[in-house]
């Protein structure tokens, strides 16, 4: 009897936690469909805020910036992170712990410190060489730097999970170094690469702080636009953007999770 009560209590706690996490999001989603102007009352379902969104040049350009930034930075991070992950795997038996800490430092560093450092660095370089004009270019570089550790970790853990003899079997079966990459390594880590890409994409779309410090006047992303817009008060339009972002990030996260879960025995 007491066991049952406990079980019910724990189940209740689970639902409470879920509600705690998702109610605020639900409110945003709900009010994005609000027919009324007011955030105080819900008067009926309407798509007017989404329609208004589609007509807003500023938002569309911010959305385009976000997408370009996320896709380009993810692709670059995938290439570099993949090489680092493989390097970490190949040299895992050496005492390279300190190097790995070095690669992971950007993850644990507060975003604001990281963002300010990037900005200061770009400003200095720009002053000296004229390169690195703040804008999408600098944002891409900044995003790549924080995406790399995640990609490297995912690729590394996929390699560690493999039977090391497979690498030797590929050599033994006449595969040249290039053919080993094409016919063995890349196909074998493909799920990890897909997972890493979508994780990087999500991280990039989510990021506000680092983007804020490295952006130029023309390169506002959605989070930067929202930040600017809410200074004038939260409009239902913002709720609509937020809802779309929740949807996009959720899809990317689910795809990432699906591929990282997919085990190949």
């Amino acid at each position, binding site marked *: 009897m007491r066991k049952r009560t406990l079980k019910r209590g724990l189940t209740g706690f689970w639902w409470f936690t879920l509600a705690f996490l998702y109610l605020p999001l639900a409110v945003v989603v709900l009010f994005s469909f609000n027919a009324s102007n007011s955030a105080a009352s819900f008067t009926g379902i309407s798509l007017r805020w989404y329609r208004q969104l589609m007509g807003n040049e500023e938002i569309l350009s911010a959305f385009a910036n976000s997408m370009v930034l996320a896709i380009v930075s993810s692709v670059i991070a995938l290439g570099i992170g993949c090489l680092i992950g493989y390097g970490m795997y190949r040299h895992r038996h050496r005492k390279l712990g300190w190097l790995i800490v070095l690669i992971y430092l950007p993850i644990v560093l507060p975003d604001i410190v990281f963002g300010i450092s990037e900005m200061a660095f770009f400003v200095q370089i720009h002053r000296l060489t004229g390169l690195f004009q703040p804008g999408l270019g600098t944002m891409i570089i900044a995003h790549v730097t924080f995406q790399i550790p995640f990609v490297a970790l995912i690729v590394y853990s996929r390699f560690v999970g*493999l*039977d090391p*003899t*497979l690498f*030797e*079997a*590929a*050599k*033994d*079966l*006449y*595969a*040249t170094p290039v*053919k080993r990459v094409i*016919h*063995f390594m890349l*196909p*074998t880590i*493909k799920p990890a690469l897909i997972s890493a890409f979508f994780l990087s994409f999500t991280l990039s779309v989510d990021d506000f702080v680092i983007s804020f410090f490295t952006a130029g006047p023309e390169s506002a992303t959605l989070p930067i636009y929202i930040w600017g817009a809410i200074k004038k008060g939260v409009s239902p339009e913002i709720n609509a953007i937020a809802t779309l972002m929740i949807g996009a990030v959720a899809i990317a996260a689910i795809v990432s999770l699906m591929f990282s879960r997919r085990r*190949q*025995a």
Partner: protein
Amino acid sequence: MTDSLTLDTGEASRAAAQQTESAEPTREASSIEMQGLHKRFGRDTVALDGVDLVIEAGEFFTLLGPSGCGKTTLLRILAGLEEADDGRLAIGGRDVTETPPHKRSVNTVFQSYALFPHLSVRENLAFGLKMRGMPPADREARVAKIAEFIHLGDLVDRRVDQLSGGQRQRIALARALVNEPDVLLLDEPLSALDAGLRSQLQVELLRVQKRLGMTFVFVTHDQQEAMVMSDRIAVLNGGVIQQVGPPREVYEHPANAFVARFMGHDNLYPISARDGDRLTTPLGVLSAEAAGEGGLLLIRPETLDLLPGEPAGDNQLPATVSERLYRGSHAEYRLEVGESTLQATLNNRGRHLPEVGDRVTVRVAPEDLVTLSE
């Protein structure tokens, strides 16, 4: 020796010959010659300490020894997965000491099988042929032929993760054989299987080797398996070859105490004095027909006879039965002879099998006694 280690100049024609289809998966077998192979890991671990060995073409050759004896290192050097620090290696008369693995016509059946998880069984089988640039149609034909030869049946259409251990083993064998290599290397390929399946696959492997006439180099730590399979065995310890010979020779005339113990012999006794053929041992004085130089006497358990009553003559020893393991086809005895113990194996041929506590006489045949050095 040096003559056969010269480089084959007809390398291109040779490579072309490998690409052509043969009616049967048989081709001329290749010999292997090793000269002074040394291998060291780190500063202190010596894996191979000067290995000179010739493996004849078409031989089923086994590298036998305990773990860490260097047998796997030697196999990996043959495969090209490890490079020797010193020494030369020739396969089929061609020096391959510095040839990378993907350029050697040698294939390996790995202990873990190492089937590619991202590929189907069929793609696994065709992998080597594809890497060598064989057109798809020819690949399919070769895969179909090997699948028939190894009796794979519908296994070819399965996914790798749907296969059992024994099935994986056979796919791994087929994946190596389909390339028709000069030499097939097998790294303890049966060690992960249970006893019944293991002896079944031993027989199958042996049949495959005899039918193909290919040179097989087999690594194992199991002396029974080595004796069943091999034309010749090399026993290794501490990176040094202790003895090379056919199974009977290695078992019946071990070169030293290490080989004797590794082949499962326990009846080893120091010879404290000798007078012609008469050897003084802790068991008593025994005459041996062809006593060699060594200071150790080996008595094989299956050569002993147990008689009732007291000793009456030469080479008969009084003993007490302290243990009997009845095994159906035979019985294993532990006997106390004075301060020493002696193992004996008796065939069960309807005769009397003495029991624990019985006083018996052990008869040692002079022609079965072997001496060896420590």
